[in-house]
């Protein structure tokens, strides 16, 4: 189920996309503290970074869009 869920996000067709080459050094650095946040999910529920923490850690996937 895990792989199917994230597979769907990777399927997007990426139309009208800038041609930026992303460096592997993109984003916050390894060793940094995660930036706290709260955001609304697809069920209308507010989810905080604290509630996402699991005993094995958290995986955050940033993706371009679920629309296009």
């Amino acid at each position, binding site marked *: 189920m895990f792989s199917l869920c994230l597979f769907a996000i990777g399927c997007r067709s990426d139309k009208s996309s800038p041609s930026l080459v992303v460096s*592997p050094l993109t984003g916050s650095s390894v060793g940094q503290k*995660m930036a706290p946040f709260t955001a609304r999910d697809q069920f209308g529920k507010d989810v905080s970074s604290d509630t996402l923490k699991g005993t094995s850690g958290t995986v955050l996937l940033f993706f371009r869009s679920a629309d296009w």
Partner: protein
Amino acid sequence: MAAISYDSPAILKDFADRHKIEFPLLADPQSKIIASYGVLNPEATGMTKGMALPGYFYIDANGLIREKYFEAKYTDRFTANNVMAKLLPELAEGVSQKVEGPHLGLTLGQSDRAVVPGSRLSLVAKIELPQDVHVYAPGVKGYKPIQLEIAPSPDLELIPPVYPPSKVLYLDAIKEQVPVFEGRFRITSEVKMSATPDFVKSLGADGKTITIAGQLRYQACDKTTCYLPASIPLTWQLQMLPLDRQRSPEAIQHK
């Protein structure tokens, strides 16, 4: 586990309903979270303004970033299973098949059964040697080291295989110290599937099955005998799926 984008909750709900996604998809329409993680795409304009650069962070239970996976090109993506296999191999799903070969047990694995263009997945050779049998490791001089080779193909980009640390064995018969592998070990080779327009077009509406070929070359020895070098042909089957081109309902689309 959570996924974050600059989409509205409505867009995420529509997408989640279509793909039956139950883990959190978090809306960041102001791109504040995206910016706080340093992944705001600075070149995005128009309806893409505010979007994230795609990739993964792994954060430990104490809130520290431990790993991250971002490709150099936005069209290239680590698959979720590949990331999980790196972080938590004991939880990784995958496909495996046993292969016959002289003097060793071999199981082939792959992180994903089906992927889309641009996906970076892993192929694995899991080897089990009988007691007192060793194979030579890369770096050995004068003997044939074990090598996992994936055949070049225009459908994919090869990434050099990763071998585990070897052990130094002293061979009394020849008075030499040599790097070897014994017991159980695995060799992992990642490949990145093509995302060229021609390749995407070749998938049509239903996708297609790709065969990835390779070889495992090695020379096995026990306490008294070195056997002839062996080469086992290998294949992995991969289902290439077309990209999802369905947009959200017009009323909630990015404009």
